[in-house]
């Protein structure tokens, strides 16, 4: 019984949150990696673009709520995602037309692209703060929990309970659906194949009649979908705050590079690696160990490797280690 309790403690406090957080990171990381593979630059505006898409979802959620629309037990935000995606794609295409396309045609070095994306980051951040302001917003409605700890305890008769928030379940399910559709698209459709061809060898792809404008357009469309969904899911799970989104860019980068940048599978995997590492290394194992060991050996300390303040540090250290030992990432990405 104690063993079962220990497992449930671990499951409740590490596995479920890590899966949800990892899904959010994975979506962002695939966004980064896709831009890197096809458009060939590190996009420093990643976090703010996700925030921009989420902003529309938040505003539309408030609007729908005022009209009385809703999805019952599901959050209203899910209803607004398609509209938010449309706005996001529109914004990305405008940015691409007026900013990035010039450097793409000139074949500028990646550093210049990175600097330009910093400019885009500033502009996006300003627009977000001007439109919605920097404050913290919660836009979750509907049912909050799927399984409550007390219900679980009553059901199973165990001392520990499992809490499953609806946002966590939605995050994991939506991520799996979106990512599998995207992988199917990249691998099985003609457009997806042409995108991969363009990413592998631009000149050869052009020779075989692939239209670069179309590839770039499709890339931004997919990027818009990923960025918005990832952003909204994160916002539902925690809360929407522009500054936090900018900070999230850093673990997302770490996830993309750890998985092997330019490789969508790697990015997907990298998201979970980073999330699990962050949560497992900063989790206090006291309760878990207490169940496993006899009561005489119960630990006094928190049994925590690092304090939770160092959550981000864990992911960045993993990134540094990966860069040192295996610069191409876990799955082989583009060479550095």
């Amino acid at each position, binding site marked *: 019984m104690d063993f079962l309790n220990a497992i449930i403690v671990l499951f409740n406090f590490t596995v479920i949150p890590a899966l949800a957080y990892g899904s959010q990171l994975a979506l962002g990381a695939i966004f980064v990696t896709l831009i890197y593979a096809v458009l060939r630059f590190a996009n420093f505006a990643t976090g703010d673009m996700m925030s921009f898409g989420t902003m529309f979802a938040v505003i539309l959620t408030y609007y729908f709520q005022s009209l009385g629309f809703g999805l019952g037990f599901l959050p209203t935000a899910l209803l607004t995602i398609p509209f938010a995606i449309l706005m996001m794609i529109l914004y990305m295409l405008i940015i691409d037309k007026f900013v990035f396309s010039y450097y793409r045609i000139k074949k500028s070095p990646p550093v210049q692209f990175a600097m330009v994306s910093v*400019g885009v*980051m*500033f*502009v996006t951040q300003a627009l977000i*703060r001007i439109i919605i302001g920097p404050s913290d917003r919660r836009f979750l409605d509907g049912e909050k929990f799927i399984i409550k700890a007390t219900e679980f305890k009553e059901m199973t008769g165990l001392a520990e309970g499992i809490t499953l928030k609806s946002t966590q379940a939605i995050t994991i399910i939506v991520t799996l659906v979106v990512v599998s559709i995207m992988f199917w698209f990249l691998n099985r459709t003609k457009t997806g194949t042409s995108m991969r061809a363009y990413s592998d060898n631009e000149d050869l792809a052009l020779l075989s009649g692939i239209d670069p404008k179309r590839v770039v357009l499709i890339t931004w469309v997919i990027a818009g979908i990923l960025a918005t969904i990832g952003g909204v899911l994160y916002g539902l799970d925690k809360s929407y705050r522009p500054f936090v989104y900018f900070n999230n860019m850093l673990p997302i980068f770490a996830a993309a*590079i750890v998985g092997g940048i330019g490789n969508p599978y790697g990015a997907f995997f990298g998201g979970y690696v980073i999330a699990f590492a962050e949560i497992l290394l900063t989790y206090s194992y006291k309760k878990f160990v207490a169940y496993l060991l006899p009561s005489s050996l119960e630990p006094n300390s928190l049994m925590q490797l690092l304090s939770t*303040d160092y959550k981000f540090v864990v992911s960045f250290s993993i990134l*540094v280690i990966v*860069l040192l030992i295996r610069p191409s990432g876990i799955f082989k990405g583009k060479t550095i």
Partner: protein
Amino acid sequence: MRNYENVIYAYIIMLLLIICVGLFQSWSIALTILNYCLISAVMTIGANIQWGYAGLINFGIMGYTALGGLAVVLVSVDPVKKAWQVGGLNILGSIWIIVAIVFITRFILKRFEKSLIRNYSIAFLIIAGVILIRVTATPGIEAIESVDPAVSGFLGGMGLPVLMSWIIGALLAGALAFIVGKIALGLRADYLAIATLLIAEIIVSIIKHEEWLARGVKNVIGLKRPAPYEVELQKTQWFRDFIEKIYSNKLELINTIAQKKIVLNQLIIDASSIFVKLCFTSLFLSVVIILLIVTQKALYSPWGRKMRAIRDNEEAASAMGKNIVKEHLFIFILGSAIVGLAGAMMVTNDGLFTPGSYRPMRYTFVIWVMVIVGGTGNNFGAILGGFVVWFLWVEAAPISLFLIDLFTAHLPETNMIRSHLVESAPYFRFLLIGIGLLLIMRYRPQGIIPEKIIKQ
């Protein structure tokens, strides 16, 4: 002289802008802006050495700035004796453990062939070390943090004069740059950017959360100053006489003695703050001028030519027998040390150390915008960039407020759009800086004052 005409015009315009602020807002604000412009100029000199001379992209400026600031606390604050007594040994012990881990790891790396066992043993060593450090340090840290937590709760510094910390700050930042450079300099440009950005985040979060070191987010206030304090200055006789003499015309117009005294007191209070700021300005200005002379000499020396050769064509320079890895590392350390110096100057100017305020937006990206806007590879350009961008950064809010008022003048005060825009006026600075950067990158990628190659 013709060559420098544009430069001189650009600087005169900048100076006039600051004087305008002095005339229309207040001289105190103008001097604050000027001081920050000078600090930004030191930072841009550092970033420009890395990016302009050698083409190394360093997005970790925030980390070095924070480390420079930390140096001010560690050097100038008086040591907290009680904290050393209760927990000093534990902290010293942990530092020794860290040193031991580093040396054993190096030993293993050198002594044994590359193998899986070697990797695992290093990983085991580090994890065991972390656990050991936690065991040794935790009681010490708890003891230190419980010593007078409201005002100290940290180990304090060495109690040396504050100007010493500028040098120590530069050295600390240089030492960090050595480690970072060893790790990251082999990476391709945009990976280097990401890696340095993340390492800077690690540094800042350590400074933020290790409260025994510098109080973390609880901030250290009331740091020493290289300039006199306003309150003491107001009591000094020669200063009072001096102010009375300057304003003698104005004072003569006032009839009653009592009123004269009140007016004089107010004047002295205003003048003392300006005098202190002028002291800082002269200190900072001398640092900027010294750095400018040195870097300018270096740029046109054989060493500068070598750096440019490496920047423009690594393969060719390598074929000519230049050690690129070594030169890159050296210039990375040099640039970071200058940024560390700037960080120390900034904390000295503020008189307080607030680790929570170190954010990549303000301390990395804005500095980069300064370098790009001013002109990469040209020190005069980089300094001008620091001035222009900092000026815009500070004055963007008043300017945008003015523009919003102008364009929404026909709307009533209670209009929703108007009040919303007025509320969000501070954020127009991001918009201004971003659009400015994009325009410069597009239409004048070499910056306001482009790099000049003098044929010798």
